[in-house]
């Protein structure tokens, strides 16, 4: 579709008294609740803006408990009982994947903020993701490695779809030698042996893909075990939790950030988030904020129905730039990633300045 510039949503008039009900499915309890709840905050922040001049959109938040069966229940409840035309889909790629046949069958738009499994490409027209596939991060890592002139590195990865995806993409595009590719488990709290194994190969640079809960522990325990290396993280670890836990040990860690923190959009978002929740933006909140905004714009354009939203999303996204970056959906309904290199300096993630 040709890129037609879309006005910012706050500039449009609310449709005459119509409130559009939108669904949201994410892990709001259980092991991964931290991420789901955080994404919920991003949506809430977006809603404040969208509904500033009278309520236009109402969101119903449902819990998938990180389970395909429960996600299905939530999906059917939203579709049958609340009659939503669009669902802000789950953070988990597997849950999104499990919902995608149903979404296609019922013609309900499913838009995930951060599902990155390459398999999402096969889902169909109604399924979107606002984050680039895992295969995009790997080559970016390879660029970092090249820049650091690291001809041998170690890789640590989380043993789930995401971690494996990023690791494989990296291995495919990296030219140097991989000393060890060490997996570890989601939900564990003791990674000392894994770290010792990596340490034993004497790497100078370690690439790590992980969720913050586990990843921050890895960095801390590694420091305690005397491992002085240049860490390079994936996008999900560029979060304040890593610095909170690893403290001084976090100093100098590099990481990829999806989108950009330097843009005016992000700065505005950051301030608004701080004001509303009294804390700096939590992880993925910028992505869920953007998905909500995109959906709102699509509704504005073609009304509160799924075909319209589907069409609208493709169109409005082309020119949209939000705090998490530009979101143009490609033919698979997946945004392309831009990455920013970040580094921890004086206890903060800041833009890495290439020499």
């Amino acid at each position, binding site marked *: 579709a040709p890129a037609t510039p879309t006005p910012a949503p706050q500039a449009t008039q609310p449709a005459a008294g119509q409130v559009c009900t939108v669904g949201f499915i994410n892990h709001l309890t259980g092991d991964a609740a931290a991420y789901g709840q955080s994404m919920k905050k991003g949506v809430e922040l977006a809603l404040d803006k969208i509904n500033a001049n009278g309520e236009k959109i109402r969101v119903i938040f449902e*819990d998938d408990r990180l389970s395909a069966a429960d996600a299905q229940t939530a999906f059917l409840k939203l579709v049958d009982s609340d009659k939503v035309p669009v669902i802000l889909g789950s953070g988990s790629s597997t849950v999104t994947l499990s919902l995608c*046949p149903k979404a296609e069958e019922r013609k309900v738009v499913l838009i995930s903020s951060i599902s990155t499994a390459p398999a999402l490409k096969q889902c169909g027209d109604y399924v979107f993701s606002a984050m680039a596939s895992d295969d995009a991060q790997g080559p970016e890592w390879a660029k970092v490695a090249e820049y650091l002139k690291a001809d041998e590195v170690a890789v640590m990865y989380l*043993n789930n779809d995401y971690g*494996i995806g990023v690791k494989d993409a990296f291995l495919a595009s990296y030219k140097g030698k991989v000393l060890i590719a060490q997996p570890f488990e989601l939900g564990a709290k003791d990674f000392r042996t894994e770290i010792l194994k990596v340490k034993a190969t004497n790497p100078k640079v370690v690439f790590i893909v992980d969720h913050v809960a586990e990843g921050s522990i890895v960095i801390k325990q590694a420091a305690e075990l005397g491992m002085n290396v240049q860490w390079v993280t994936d996008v999900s670890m560029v979060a304040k939790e890593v610095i909170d836990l690893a403290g001084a040990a976090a100093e100098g860690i590099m990481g990829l950030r999806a989108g950009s923190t330097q843009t005016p959009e992000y700065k505005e978002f950051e301030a608004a988030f701080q004001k509303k929740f009294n804390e700096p933006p939590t992880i993925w909140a910028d992505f869920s904020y953007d998905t909500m905004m995109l959906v709102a714009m699509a509704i504005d354009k073609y009304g509160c129905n799924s075909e319209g939203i589907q069409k609208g999303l493709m169109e409005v996204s082309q020119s949209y730039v939000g705090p998490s970056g530009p979101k143009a959906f490609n033919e698979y309904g997946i945004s392309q990633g831009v990455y920013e290199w970040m580094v921890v300096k004086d206890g903060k993630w800041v833009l890495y300045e290439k020499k």
Partner: protein
Amino acid sequence: MEIAVHLLVLITIYGILAISLNLMVGMAGLFNLGLAAFYGIGAYTSAILSRNFGVPVGLSLLAGVALAALIGFIIGLPTVKLVGDYLAVVTMGLGEITRAVFKNWVPVTRGPMGLPGIPHMSLFGFKLDTAPFFLAFSFLMIAVSFILVERIRLSPFGRVLRGVREDEMGAQALGKNTYWYKMTALVVGSGLAGLAGGLFAHYMNFIDPSSFVMWLTFFIFLAIMMGGLGNNLGAVVATGVLMVLREGLRFAGLPPAVAAPLQQLIFGILLIIMTIFAPRGLIPEQKPRYD
């Protein structure tokens, strides 16, 4: 409403699990915390056979049942000698090991990525690709399981199982080979769990290791304890009650800020209250009458 059909399908599937667990725990006293593993074995077997090798779904379902039962048998050989909570922890361990296999045997199970595109259930060439059709089938399956386990309960065989549950040494003193009784219960129970797993796979058309976690085992446990240990009807009814309670709270219109954890909180409190008022379950084990 499709959600009602969906919940009913899940209730029939979990109901079969409850019946299976009731046979093992409620009737035979085999404290099996590895239920989710057998469920998963049934699901993965049937999914892989039908999806990757084009085996007709009815056959693959049977294969899942058979493999779950077989693994129940192998695992049972050394473990049914253990008693009470020791058996619990061993089966729990085996459950976790099985899940680790689902998760890490990537070439076969696709590991954490899960298996999408599992074929729909079909019977004699007739495809059960809508939820109501599937419900009819899964209802038939739960009916069959229910009748089977009820028959066991009412038979002299079931009586021996209860004796083993009450006092294994005592049953031995009456000349009962308690080992084989427990073994049979374990094998039949595992097979039923495998059946439930197969149904789940062909209903969801997608499975991944997160569907076979220990929480599911706990949930089914809650159901059979709430239903009245040893009572099959109670187990199924309680599964329904718990599912409706748990999912029904979605409709309660709780404040969105805390809705999801609040649902969990309320669910927990209701469970405590129900247990305190009916500690032997909604429908306690019935005394068999002899006339």
